[in-house]
């Protein structure tokens, strides 16, 4: 039963342009960054046009109005993920959010922190953003990084979870949905194992929060991050959610104005969360833009969005299975699978696949997708990846499928 979201595409001005070869745009790279509806672009512009001022700092009307919009954006994000307002920190990106958590947990002044010999657990399918900060934290503190692996069809391998998540484990950092395989991970199962040994759980929701409904309490995690730009929002805005009592136990990671309780030349003390994690004049217009994106998403309904993407994924997987020489990298079935489909074309390097598709107006991502260890393990140099959002439709899938046939003929793939 497919949902008709075709009416929404016209809200996205980018589809009015033509791309290479005079073609209309088939944008299948939302996994990297999403397109923006007019309402988001306008929300950001209107902030500048009507209420622009430094938040939390002035006694004047503009500052009041700017502060109010900024805090309303925070509440809106909180509602979107089932959290309390004061648990939502605005950063510039999911990458910053993860680094902030890693720095805070690496600071011995934090009431909760990682020590030498502690274990940090990740998975072998993490995006670099949810891997390198933990490698560095391990390096700084003397902690040990270990990881859960994945099965041949791109699902998390939990067969040895008891050996990986042990009483030494203090932190488990995992992705909600793989940005290569499209697999949705069984977070509750993993967080249950983590909680059983008293470990904290950090969830990378970059590929989930923009596509289906999530609730931090149900997920039973301690921290959650995502990026505004993948959720129809502006660039330059990220979310760091943490349980309030945990945020209160952590030292901040970025220091400056508007995050202090008191300052002398010798030292400083911090205000409460979330303020203490937001040093400096914040990315105010971007927070307000993200809030408009959340309004746009929730107005359509996250369940409708995920159904829509589910249908597209089904159609693409079926179509790809009919093309010889094409191999899907990730689950072939639709169970616990989001709208991200990676594949290879035998005999053609992904970069060349992408280039030919681009000639026909089809924008995909090619390469290792910032998941290099995953690629190494699969002995692949990279994949071609198609990923969806609400503006995609069945016609896009048809154009992609016929594009792949053109790739094969261009590179004279005999199979």
């Amino acid at each position, binding site marked *: 039963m497919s949902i008709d979201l075709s009416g929404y595409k016209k809200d996205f001005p980018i589809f009015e342009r033509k791309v290479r070869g005079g073609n209309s745009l088939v944008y299948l790279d939302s996994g990297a960054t999403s397109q923006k509806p007019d309402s988001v672009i306008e929300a950001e512009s209107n902030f500048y046009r009507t209420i622009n001022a430094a938040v939390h700092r002035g*006694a004047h009307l503009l500052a*009041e109005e700017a*502060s109010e919009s900024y805090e309303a954006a925070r509440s809106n994000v909180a509602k979107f993920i089932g959290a309390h307002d004061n648990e939502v920190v605005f950063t510039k990106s999911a990458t910053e959010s993860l680094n902030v958590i890693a720095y805070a947990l690496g600071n011995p002044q934090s009431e909760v922190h990682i020590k030498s010999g502690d274990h940090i657990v990740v998975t072998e399918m993490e995006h670099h953003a949810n891997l390198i900060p933990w490698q560095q934290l391990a390096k700084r503190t003397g902690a040990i990084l270990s990881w859960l692996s994945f099965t041949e069809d791109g699902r998390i391998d939990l067969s040895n979870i008891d050996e990986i998540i042990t009483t030494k484990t203090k932190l488990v950092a995992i992705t909600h949905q793989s940005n290569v395989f499209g697999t949705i991970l069984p977070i509750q199962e993993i967080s249950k194992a983590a909680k059983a040994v008293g470990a904290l759980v950090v969830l990378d929701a970059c590929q989930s929060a923009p596509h289906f409904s999530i609730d931090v309490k149900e997920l039973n995690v301690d921290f959650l991050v995502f990026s505004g730009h993948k959720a129809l929002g502006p660039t330059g805005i990220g979310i760091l959610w943490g349980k309030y009592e945990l945020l209160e136990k952590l030292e901040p990671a970025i220091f400056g104005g*508007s995050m*202090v*309780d*008191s300052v002398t030349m010798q030292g400083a003390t911090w205000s409460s969360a979330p303020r203490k994690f937001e040093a400096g004049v914040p990315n105010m217009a971007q927070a307000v833009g993200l809030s408009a994106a959340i309004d746009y998403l929730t107005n359509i309904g996250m369940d409708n969005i995920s159904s829509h993407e589910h249908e597209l994924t089904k159609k693409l997987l079926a179509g790809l299975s009919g093309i010889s020489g094409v191999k899907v990298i990730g689950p072939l079935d639709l169970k616990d699978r989001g709208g991200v489909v990676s594949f290879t074309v035998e005999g053609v390097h992904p970069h060349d696949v992408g280039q030919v598709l681009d000639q026909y107006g089809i924008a995909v991502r090619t390469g290792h997708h910032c998941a290099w260890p995953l690629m190494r393990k699969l002995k692949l140099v990279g994949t071609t990846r198609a990923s969806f959002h609400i503006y995609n439709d069945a016609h896009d899938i048809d154009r992609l499928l016929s594009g792949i046939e053109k790739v094969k003929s261009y590179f004279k793939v005999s199979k």
Partner: protein
Amino acid sequence: MELDSLYQEVILDHYRTPHHKGLTSESDIQVHHNNPSCGDEVTLNLSMRDGKIVDISWDGVGCSISIASASVMSDLLIGKSYDQANVILQAFVELMQSKGKSTGDEVLLEDGVAFAGVSKFPARIKCALLGWMAFKDAAAQVME
């Protein structure tokens, strides 16, 4: 003028001649609170006996709103029981959050209702609450 709803005469009077300002030497507890966004500070001494507020004295630097509010707060709470004080505190906090829609309970808040207009100026609510929050913190510590 809109401004007059913020700066009621009662407030300006308390600002010019604040009550219970100047720390007395005896107290069960001393707390120090500040408002980091504008630098205002208050130090508050609290004496309680048998669950009753015997004395409040305070000192600090701040704007008219924060000084006047600390003055009104001490007037109101000295002599009250801890429970009564909490009822008054709660009423004042609610008035501050009312966005100009409440005029306040004059029986409970007395001079405190003069602060109703502050609730329309979000940046000033923290000023009005500074002394009250210091009291709340101090009393909670004594009652522990």
